[in-house]
Each structure stands twice: as structure tokens, then as C-alpha cells.
């Protein structure tokens, strides 16, 4: 049976796009992050009857951010459950459901509200397998938007990447692209351990090129594996979630000035793909981390510490610099909010400082 050259190319690009850069994929379609998450949920619910979704407004409202659009209509009350506004209670219920034989996807409308339920995420879910010496497992997914949005104020803008990724027993992912969103959410749902999926509200509407493979029903991404979005030889930029976009924008601008940045999209925060970072730093000799969360005990801090403790340290030509959110609660006023979140010029400035160029 003859296979067309185009199909071979698409196949190849599908493979390539998984391990290298999404922008290199010979793409078939565009997919928003929202639709990627939606199809991930739909496909996993279709595949496994024990998978169900619960959270505020996920059913009849189609989801506060429309991530679960159409699911209630398709699967009904049993599998898409609207909860009251009681995070502590419903997160606990989700954990119990996971212990009792189901695979719940527990949505927090934003991760800010997960603070009310964090005892269940950490104490009831993440520690149980260990405390029981492996008798009771908790196959649960906690998902929802994380971090800064736009104009939502201090109580609705916190990034929980550090808090959750600190906890052994949890797996934590932070998707950037549609491919990330779909592949990581599907992997999270299939995973027998508790997984926290930190999405980003501002990315929901963003379209990305995706290959046919991404669109397939069995497309999963491995947890704990970062991806090099853009290759470069002068400096490594490591980011997760929306900060990847920021790093890529800075990289594009810098390329115009002859500086080639290697941009690593972490995808997972726990486990953190130290190997990919170290390999890159050994190649480029310079590192800047980029994140939207607060600086103290942030993801950048962890990356820096790990690089310093690794063989890559001896290859560094400059100290590691972190680009982070400003160390204040998020203000509302537009210009202040913009100033509190790293912008491309912040990354460019950091890169130039590190490379000692003007």
C-alpha cells in the first residue's frame, strides 16, 4: 500500500514536534488550549467510565471558562457534577471517590480557591500512598487555572507552582501549548497517583498549531519530561506555562540581535526535568529562568539550586538569573499589574546582563 510523501512528512513532524519544537511541526490544524483540554476530558471520559468531572459550574454552565463545554450534555449528571461553592468539602469528596474506585477530575475554579482545600490535596491525597505503605492509592486530578490573569486583583492572582511542586507524593504539571494541555491532562487522568494540573486562564483562548498525532485519542505526553521549544547556543531560558510565551517572544527579539536562546518549556514541575536543563546549560553556559510567580522559593530558585548542584555548574559563565513576578500582592491598576508580571523586555534585559552585552 503506497503511503504518500505528505503522510510520511506529517508522521515525522508529529514525532519531531513531540521532542523538539512545536513550531517546527508540519501541522494539520489549529487548536486552542481550551479545546485541547476539552477534548482531553471528553476522550478520557469516553475511554474510561470511572473518569468523571466535578467542580463549580462544570456541568450546566459548561464550565466557568468553558473548558467543560458540551460534556454535561454528552455524559449527564452522573459524570459531570456541579458542586456547591464548598472547596474543602468537594475536594475531600473527590479524594474519597478516588480511593473508592473512581478517577475524579476535581476542578478548582482557580487555584486560589484550592487553598481552602489544600489539606485534602496534600494530606488526604498526596501522602496517603506513602503513609499506607502503598496500600491505598488516590488516582485523582486536581485542575484549574493558576497564577495571574488580568485585573482580578491580589486574591485571585497567586501562582501555586511552588506550593504544590514542593510536595512529594504529588505530580505537578504546568502546560503551555495546546499540545501540552491535551497530552498532559490525558496523562494526568491516566496516572494512578494524584496529579495537579496548573492551567493558565489567559492561555485558554490561545491557538496553537497541532499535528494529527496531537488530535488522536491516545495522544499522551510523558510526565516529568520538558521540551525544547526553540534551540539556541548562547543561553538557556527555562520557563513554564505562560512564561514560555514570554521567553519565546524575548528569544525572537534577541535573535534579531544575533543572540540565540534555547527555550525550555518545563511542562512538568514535579518531577522537574533536571536532565534536559543540565544538558542545555552545559551546551549554552548561561541560564535565565522565567516565571510569573513570586521570587522567593519560586520555580526559578529550585532550578538555580539544582543547576548549581549539578555538573552544569562548572560550565556556567555567569550566575543564574531569575526573572519572576514582583514580590508584592498583585495590584489591580492596569499599568501596575503589567509592571508586576515579567515582560519580554525584562527577559531581554536579564539575558543581556548575563551575556554581558548591551
Amino acid at each position, binding site marked *: 500500500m503506497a503511503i504518500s510523501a505528505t503522510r510520511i512528512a506529517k508522521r515525522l513532524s508529529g514525532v519531531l514536534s513531540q521532542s523538539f519544537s512545536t513550531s517546527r511541526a508540519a501541522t494539520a490544524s489549529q487548536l486552542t488550549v481550551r479545546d485541547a483540554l476539552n477534548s482531553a476530558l471528553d476522550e478520557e471520559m469516553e475511554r474510561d467510565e470511572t473518569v468523571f468531572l466535578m467542580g463549580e459550574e462544570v456541568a450546566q454552565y459548561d464550565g466557568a471558562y468553558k473548558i467543560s463545554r458540551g460534556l454535561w450534555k454528552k455524559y449527564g449528571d452522573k459524570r459531570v457534577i456541579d458542586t*456547591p461553592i464548598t472547596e474543602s468539602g468537594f475536594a475531600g469528596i473527590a479524594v474519597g471517590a478516588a480511593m473508592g474506585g473512581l*478517577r475524579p477530575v476535581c476542578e478548582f475554579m482557580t487555584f486560589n480557591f484550592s487553598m481552602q482545600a489544600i489539606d485534602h490535596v496534600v494530606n488526604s491525597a498526596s501522602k496517603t500512598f506513602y503513609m499506607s505503605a*502503598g496500600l491505598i*492509592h488516590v488516582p485523582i486530578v486536581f485542575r484549574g487555572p493558576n497564577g495571574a490573569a488580568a485585573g482580578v486583583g491580589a486574591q485571585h492572582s497567586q501562582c501555586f507552582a511552588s506550593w504544590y511542586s514542593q510536595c512529594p507524593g504529588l505530580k505537578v504539571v504546568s502546560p503551555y501549548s495546546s499540545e501540552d494541555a491535551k497530552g498532559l491532562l490525558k496523562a494526568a487522568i491516566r496516572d494512578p497517583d494524584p496529579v495537579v494540573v496548573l492551567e493558565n486562564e489567559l492561555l485558554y483562548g490561545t491557538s496553537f498549531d497541532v499535528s494529527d498525532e496531537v488530535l488522536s485519542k491516545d495522544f499522551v505526553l510523558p510526565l*516529568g519530561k520538558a521540551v525544547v521549544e526553540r534551540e539556541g547556543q548562547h543561553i538557556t531560558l527555562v520557563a513554564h506555562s505562560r512564561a514560555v510565551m514570554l521567553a519565546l517572544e524575548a528569544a525572537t527579539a534577541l535573535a534579531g540581535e544575533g543572540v540565540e536562546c534555547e527555550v525550555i518549556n518545563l511542562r512538568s514541575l514535579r518531577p522537574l526535568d533536571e536532565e534536559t536543563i543540565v544538558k542545555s546549560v552545559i551546551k549554552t553556559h548561561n541560564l535565565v529562568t522565567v516565571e510569573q510567580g513570586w521570587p522567593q522559593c519560586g520555580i526559578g530558585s529550585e532550578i538555580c539550586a539544582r543547576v548549581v548542584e549539578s555538573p552544569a555548574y562548572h560550565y556556567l559563565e555567569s550566575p543564574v538569573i531569575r526573572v519572576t513576578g514582583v514580590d508584592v500582592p498583585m495590584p489591580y491598576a492596569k499599568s501596575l499589574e503589567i509592571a508586576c508580571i515579567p515582560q519580554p523586555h525584562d527577559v531581554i534585559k536579564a539575558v543581556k546582563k548575563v551575556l554581558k552585552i548591551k
Partner: protein
Amino acid sequence: LLRDEIKIKTEMLSKIVRAVVTQSQSNKRALAPFMTSVRRGGTVTEATFQTQPYKLHRLDEPPSTTSICSRDDALLFYRQMQIIRRLESASSNLYKEKAIRGFCHLYSGQEAICVGVKAALRSQDSVITAYRDHGWAYVMGCSIVSIMAELTGRTQGVARGKGGSMHMYTKNFYGGNGIVGAQVPVGAGVALANKYLENGGICVALYGDGAANQGQLYEAYNMAKLMSLPAVFICENNGYGMGTSVDRASASTNYYTRGDYVPGIWIDGMDVLSVREAIRYCIDYCTSGKGPLVLEVATYRYHGHSMSDPGTSYRTRDEIQEVRQTRDPIMLFKDHIIGADLVTADELKKIDNEVRKEVDEAVKIAKTDKEIAVQELATDVYLNPVETTIRGTTPFDPYTHRRLSKVANLH
């Protein structure tokens, strides 16, 4: 000042004893059975007893006013309660010898609850409780050796010594939970799984009078009622949340009514058969799609809140003695079953000796068994580990993650 102290303590005493004593002053509880069956070799094969009166909230029909107890059940319940009593007593001694560390919350006095509940449960039912879980671990299937060895943190422990007193688990028993109140919504979640999977099971979620004021309980009641979950929420009211008596912690101490729109039952927790009948009723209720129930089981704990609490600064020794002498669940049951000719005193004495021996053996093992190898601290953090190394105290000596266990709830 001394007279005031005595006055306060006497008031407390009478309040507590009144809470525990189910009857009106004229104690109408029937000691003797009113119906017996065939006699065989000096004992009968079964006897019928009256249960202690129940108090109802938003329910018309109470659980059964009678309970048939077979000879086998009589021997079983007695043995189970004695084992738990002995186990807890041994734990107390081990703790004082520093063979048990950290937290140790003893169940002595409350035995009739876990034995009575388990007597009614079927294989598809689940239980979840808080940290006063040794008795529950036992009735749900953990061996005496595994419980004691878990307390001393050794290899033969329920969780290989990795959990400790508050974290014992087995199939359909979800612990053993250290955070007050957290187990209640989790229990409602297990009930959700039962309903979803249509396995006919219910989940019994226990908590104390202290936890009864936690907000997440009300969140759990709400959702359980909305979704008609087969959940039985049980407050083991022993009169004190640590050192705080119920009157000082709760604006309403009618815990069986605290579910408001969720119907409730108050039960005398010192009578194992009353507890059993109540749970049978609950199973019937919950499995016919009527939704959750809130139970309050009145009981008493002889020891302090935990081994760090002598348990005498907030109650009098007289009060504790009073309950031991007049309301002890094992003593009461013993009187029942001997009085009904279900068993002989000698038979029970034999059980006592066997129990003592079994527990003594278990203590010996618990003291001499080894701890797991240090490397095993990196075992079973994940069911499906992504990384194989786990960072140690420095980056120079990482551990290797290993999978060892047979998962009890694999799905």
C-alpha cells in the same frame, strides 16, 4: 476555692454521666432476655434482647427495638471487644516504655461501637475514621500483631511502620486520618464511588464530638444529601474534644441533629447490640436511595485524649470510675450473654486468657521486630514513579524509589 472546684466538677460529672446514661432515672433496661431458643449443653443458641431506646431526628421509625444475638455472635463480640481493650491497654504500657512514640489515641471504653458497626456491615461496605483508629483497624481486618507492630514502627506493621498510630489501612478501611474532620468529606466521597459504581456499598465515616463543629462536615452533609449518597456519618461522642467538654465547644450538643436536613439517630454506644441494630437500619435506609444519615453514638473514653493527656485535668477520677463500674460496654455485654445463658462464665474466662496470651505475644513481636531498612524510606511514594531517584539530605546520597506493595484498592 476548693468548694467551687468540687461544685464545678460534680456538675460536670453529672452532666457527662447523664449524657452517657441512656435511660430515665428509673433505668428500665432489660437485663434478661424475654425469648430464648433451644438449649444445648447448658447454653442456648440464640437469645433476643431489647435494644436501648434511640432518639430520632426527622425519622419516624427507629431501628429495631430488639436484637437477636446468636451464641457465635456473643462469643465473637465479646472476644473482639476484649481484644481491643487489651490491645489498647498494652499500647498504653508500650507508650510509657517509649516503645511507641508520637501520638497514641486509645479507644478503651468505646469498643462497642466499632464491634457493633462492623457486625452489621457487609463485604461491600467501607469505613473511614480519625486517629482513634486501633479498634477500627482490628475489626476491619488488621491482625493484632500488625497493629501493635505499626505502633512500634516495625516491619510487620500494617504500614510497615511508615504510618504509625494514626495511619492504619486495609481493604475498605481508609484509615486512620490525622487531620480532624478531613475524613468526613473523604468518607462521603467513598460513598459517592459506591453509588456511582452501583456496588451496593455504604461508607461509614466516623468523627468525634470535637470534629463535629468542623465546617467541612457540613459541606459533606450538604453534598451527601444533594446527591443522596449512601453515607452514614457517625459522631462518636465521648463527651470531650481533647480537654474541652462538649458544652464548652458546641453551641448545640445534639450531634445527631446537627445534620439539620439530614435525618439522625442517637444511640447508646455502650450497648453493642443497639449499635448493630442501628447500623442495620442505616444500611437499609441508605441502600434504598434515601441518602445519608447522621448518627450520634454516646460513649466514653477511659484514657485521656492521647497518651500525652492524663485525662484528669478536665474531668474527675470519680466520673471515670462511675462509667467503668456502671456503663462499661464489655461488662454490660458480658452480663447480657451470661444472663441469657448464651455463654458460660468459664467460656468467657477462657476467652480472656486467650486474648491476654494473643496480645502478649503480639507485644513481644512488636518490641522485637526490626524496623524496615532505611532505604525503604524511598519506597512507594508513587504507585507509578516517574523518577527513580529521590533526593536525600544532600545531593550526594540519593535514594532509589522502589515499588513494593500490593495495592489494596487498585483501579
